[in-house]
């Protein structure tokens, strides 16, 4: 492939230099080197529209929501609910199917608790996969312990793809829910979620998708997917930390008991009995993270302004370029070589430890993640101590990949 020509054609379609100006943190100097931020799967950087909106909220809007009659309370409530509509439209959902949470982890815990209370009993089964993040393993284990249910795990291939035949064999009358990741945070694998949902629905089994790594890169249509629950985090989609989303079909949500008790989630409280609000408020006890909820919409509008199709095309080119460059380095072994991948490259280098590579890259200004990436069972499957993970966002460049590869070569030469 003629890379120079490729990057030039991309520049015409996708003006990355202009986009980078929206992200002040990308101009940081690290140990005398310009920052190369390749840890986007851990968290994304924030554009100025997001940073400014946080300040603007406290200057002009701050007030509690759904409570008061006064001007500011109405303003905050309107913006808070408007943001919910923007998130809903982004996922092609209805606004009353969108629950604000603290993040993907809380979204999953909410379903594990509330769906579990309503529908899971002793002897039942929950299906997850081998490539799940700990946050899509542990809540289900806790549910299983509580209810005397058991966890079934979809195996994977060496390339890092789910074994769908094995998955279909696991589906049974005991299965109460399938919870799998849309995109693997460690491998980058984009799972065939349509097929997973179709097979589960054929047996009337609902499906939860962990979309933490999907929403920053892919257009999600929950209606088209017909998925029952979908979760993602604000901070991975260029929004603030401390805000996440749970999409749930109304037919499930209103059958599920509340996750937490408190203000906001009630219809009427007496000491004898409390009646609960319908979703989404039923699941939003207490004062929410109003600022982050409102600002999340700014982040979503921002990525829609660039366009998820353009983002996906550009990131795929970064992935291909980075993959080719890394494959040329002697001793580099890619972990996760699925046919369909998002812009994540995990690898190990023969004769070196991932943490050594991570430290030496950092000293050259390159930020990657090293370790097990909260997927210990998966890393155990590959019999490695962890990986070095470079994960790209649309503000990364081909030149940054060149800097990364040069820094990696230098690190390897020092370690061998």
């Amino acid at each position: 492939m003629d890379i120079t020509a490729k990057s030039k054609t991309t520049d015409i379609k996708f003006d990355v230099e202009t986009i980078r100006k929206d992200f002040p943190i990308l101009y940081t100097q690290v140990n005398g080197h310009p920052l190369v931020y390749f840890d986007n799967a851990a968290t994304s950087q924030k554009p100025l529209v997001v940073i400014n909106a946080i300040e603007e909220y406290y200057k002009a809007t701050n007030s509690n929501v759904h409570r008061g009659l006064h001007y500011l309370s109405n303003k905050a409530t309107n913006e808070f609910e408007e943001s919910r509509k923007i998130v809903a439209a982004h996922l092609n959902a209805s606004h009353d199917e969108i629950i604000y949470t603290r993040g993907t982890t809380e979204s999953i815990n909410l379903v594990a608790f509330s769906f579990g209370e309503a529908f899971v009993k002793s002897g039942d089964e929950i299906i997850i996969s081998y490539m799940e993040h700990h946050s899509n393993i542990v809540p289900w284990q806790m549910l299983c312990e509580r209810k005397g249910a058991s966890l079934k795990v979809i195996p994977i291939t060496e390339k890092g793809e789910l074994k769908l035949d094995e998955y279909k064999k696991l589906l049974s009358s005991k299965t109460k829910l399938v919870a799998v990741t849309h995109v693997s945070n460690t491998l980058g694998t984009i799972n065939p979620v349509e097929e997973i949902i179709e097979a589960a629905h054929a047996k009337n089994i609902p499906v939860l998708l962990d979309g933490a790594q999907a929403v920053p890169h892919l257009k999600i249509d929950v209606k088209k997917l017909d998925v029952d629950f979908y979760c993602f985090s604000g901070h991975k989609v260029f929004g603030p930390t401390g805000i996440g989303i749970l999409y749930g079909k109304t037919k499930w949500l209103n059958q599920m008991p509340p996750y937490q008790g408190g203000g906001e989630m009630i219809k009427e409280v007496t000491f004898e009995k409390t009646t609960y609000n319908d979703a989404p408020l039923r699941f939003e006890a207490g004062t929410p993270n109003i600022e982050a909820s409102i600002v999340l919409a700014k982040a979503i509008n921002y990525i829609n302004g660039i366009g998820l199709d353009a983002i996906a095309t550009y990131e795929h080119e970064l992935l291909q370029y980075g993959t080719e460059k890394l494959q040329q380095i002697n001793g580099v072994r890619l972990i996760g070589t699925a046919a369909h991948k998002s812009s994540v490259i995990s690898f190990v280098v023969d004769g070196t430890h991932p943490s050594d590579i991570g430290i030496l890259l950092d000293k050259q200004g390159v930020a990657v993640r090293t370790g097990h990436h909260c997927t210990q069972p998966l890393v155990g499957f590959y019999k490695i101590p962890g990986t070095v993970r470079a994960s790209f966002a649309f503000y990364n460049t081909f030149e940054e990949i060149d800097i990364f590869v040069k820094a990696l070569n230098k690190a390897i030469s020092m370690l061998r």
Partner: protein
Amino acid sequence: MNSVYCDMSIEETEQEIVEEFEIFSDWMDKYEHIIEIGNSVPKIEEKYKDEAHEIKGCQSKVWVHSELKDQHIFYTADSDAIITKGLVGLVLRVASGHTPDEILNTNFDFINKIGLHEHLSPTRSNGLNAMIKQIKLDALALRTINN
């Protein structure tokens, strides 16, 4: 780090390390030196590379064995990550050949002085803190045996 008592005090060894690192202005050169130190750490016997000798809290695996000879402690160690092993090597170079009391009274200030304090943060996954805590616990245990 041979089996004779260290003829330098802990402070002297620390000062020696600080001066050694002053030569390097570039971070990569500092780490090159740490890697060299990692390659010269007295190697722990395979039988001690077990759970009991493993330092918890590190992204990489680290094992340290402490042995009391004539009231002085001597160390052997290993790690599957060479930079971690180099950091371990620096700490052991300071501590090795000293009495349990001397080791217990050391706060390993030199790590700050050579600019490696980022490795001391409790959230750092290479756990230099955990390692210092462990050698102090070992020193305490060996002092008790000694008494």
